[in-house]
């Protein structure tokens, strides 16, 4: 274990999905779902990956889980490279990275009892010895996610959405993972349940020292539990910084637009909203230069030809925008 290295390092991750067409099913095009994403997560830290639908944030999560192989790039867990691991070793690695999915209805097998759902990872990783031990461990998991112990003999359809999401979290906790990827884990829940689940995740993080990769489209949710935020647009990270900096002084025009879209629970508040024009370009044929240039309110000639790199603009604050290089050209909070 390297104490100085981050728990998870993702280096220039790319995932392109081929599109098969034509008579013989040859590759006719590619979806550039994730196109060079670099970040890291430290132990016990929450990193949020935000962006609108189709920007590739879920693909990043699934690539780290190795639900498919990467097109390019490297992923290190605790200094050990996991993106090219062989099947046998990979299976044991899975013990350390777990996932909670968005939809609490399709993420639990409708034909398995809660006990069997929670027992699955425990049995797979050889963590139980005998039936009594299994029962104890499953009950301990139910305690952790604040569900009644006697619910273990029920089927998923007997639970509400929030309760099901707790079962999903319990399953992710079962093997004692270091990192849990929450893929839109609270997006399908209503507001009060959402708050409960977020608080539960925060409590569990304190209790167990978990690192969380929190994938979400909702900045308002992210604000409550994250340490750092990475903003994605069309398969790339456009800005990465800690929570306070992001919400107070983000640099990237896209981040500003996202922030201005967060609803404020005050009907009298008058705000200047940044309304983006047009739709997200297709990831099959992304724009040249800066990917955001087709919708950016501050676009200038350089943006159309040269791709901006993710550069440091402050302490631990990365941003990919040409305006950062123009002296005094940064979009300051007051400008928005």
């Amino acid at each position, binding site marked *: 274990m390297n104490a100085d290295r981050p728990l998870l390092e993702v280096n220039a991750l790319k995932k392109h999905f081929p599109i098969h067409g034509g008579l013989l099913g040859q590759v006719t095009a590619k979806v550039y779902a994730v196109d060079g994403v670099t970040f890291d997560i430290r132990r016990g830290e929450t990193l949020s990956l935000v962006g609108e639908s189709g920007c590739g944030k879920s693909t990043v999560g699934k690539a780290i889980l190795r639900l498919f192989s990467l097109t390019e790039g490297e992923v290190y867990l605790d200094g050990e490279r996991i993106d090219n691991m062989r099947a046998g070793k990979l299976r044991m690695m899975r013990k350390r990275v777990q996932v909670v999915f968005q939809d609490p209805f*399709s993420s639990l*097998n409708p034909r398995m009892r809660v006990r069997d759902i929670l027992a699955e990872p425990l049995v797979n990783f050889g963590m139980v010895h005998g039936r009594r031990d299994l029962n104890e461990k499953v009950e301990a998991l139910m305690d952790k996610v604040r569900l009644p112990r006697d619910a273990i003999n029920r089927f998923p359809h007997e639970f509400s959405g929030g309760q099901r999401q707790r079962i999903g979290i319990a399953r992710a906790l079962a093997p004692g993972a270091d990192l849990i990827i929450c893929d839109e884990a609270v997006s399908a829940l209503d507001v009060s349940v959402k708050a409960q689940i977020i608080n539960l995740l925060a409590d569990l993080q304190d209790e167990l020292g978990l690192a969380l990769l929190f994938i979400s489209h909702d900045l308002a949710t992210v604000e409550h539990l994250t340490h750092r935020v990475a903003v994605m647009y069309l398969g790339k990270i456009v800005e990465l910084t800690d929570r306070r900096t992001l919400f107070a002084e983000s640099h990237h025009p896209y981040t500003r637009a996202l922030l201005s879209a967060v609803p404020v629970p005050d009907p009298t508040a008058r705000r200047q909203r940044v309304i983006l024009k047009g739709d997200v370009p297709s990831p099959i044929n992304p724009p040249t230069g800066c990917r955001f240039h087709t919708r950016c309110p501050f676009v200038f000639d350089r943006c159309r030809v040269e791709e901006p790199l993710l550069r440091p603009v402050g302490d631990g604050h990365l941003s990919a925008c040409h305006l950062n290089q123009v002296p005094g050209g940064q979009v300051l909070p007051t400008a928005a």
Partner: protein
Amino acid sequence: MSATAPGHVAGAPTLPAILPVPKQRGRIMGFVYRHPTIVIGGLLVGVMIFIAIFAPYLGTTDPTALAPAKRTREPSAIYWFGTDMLGRDVYSRVMYGSRVSLLVGFSVAFCASILGTLIGVVAGFIRSVDAVVMRIMDGLMSIPSILLAIALMALTRASVQNVIVAITIAEFPRVSRLVRGLVLSLREQPYVEAAIASGTRVPVIIWKHILPNTLAALMVQATFICASAMITEATLSFIGAGTPPIVPSWGNIMAEGRALWQVKPYIVFFPAIFLSVTVLAVNLLGDGLRDALDPRLAKRL
């Protein structure tokens, strides 16, 4: 709450009983009411199974016993369904004939489901196998199943086992296609991805996560295959390519009565009624199961 509810304000009239009192139905009557097709189909299939099992005790005589002196008798108190051109009792032959139909129907449904599931799961999980195997299935499905069965029967000698094998080969590609489709959609389900992330091995995923969730669709498909296999068996027997003539099957009885159908229609009529009712019953059962298990399946089958 109740103290402030409008109904309890002094002087206000109490609510009239506008809602009818819900009928108290027993569990069984409730099921009959909700799934009439399952009940009717199930009962009829049950009756047919009863007839097949207890054929010797239902006032039948030897269905193969010849009595040339008593040939082509009209239905009467002695010969309920009459006798055929060789003097055999049509009633006994029809009762015993249910054994062949049900045996062929159920065996084909079972074998085709097993074989189709096996191939469907393999094709759904291994892309390279999928491309080849599914083209073969397409090829098999492009031949009308009755023609395929006739061709296969022409290669072997007539027997009930060979009929079962021939119809199974003609029917299983449909199952494999259904199962492959289900596997392809089920393996994308988040609970399967979660199982992979939990370190579950592929065979266990298939056994615990994929197969149980294909069962509903598979059962429905199996009932339809059962019905279609019964018709195919009768057709094969009718054209002389099915069960050997010595075995009383509904198709055979009809084939033998065909020459006389204008003067002695009852020889064809009774086995035809039994075949129709049995096939209808199995189809009703399948329809009912489909609606009860998953209404969304209605579009897929």
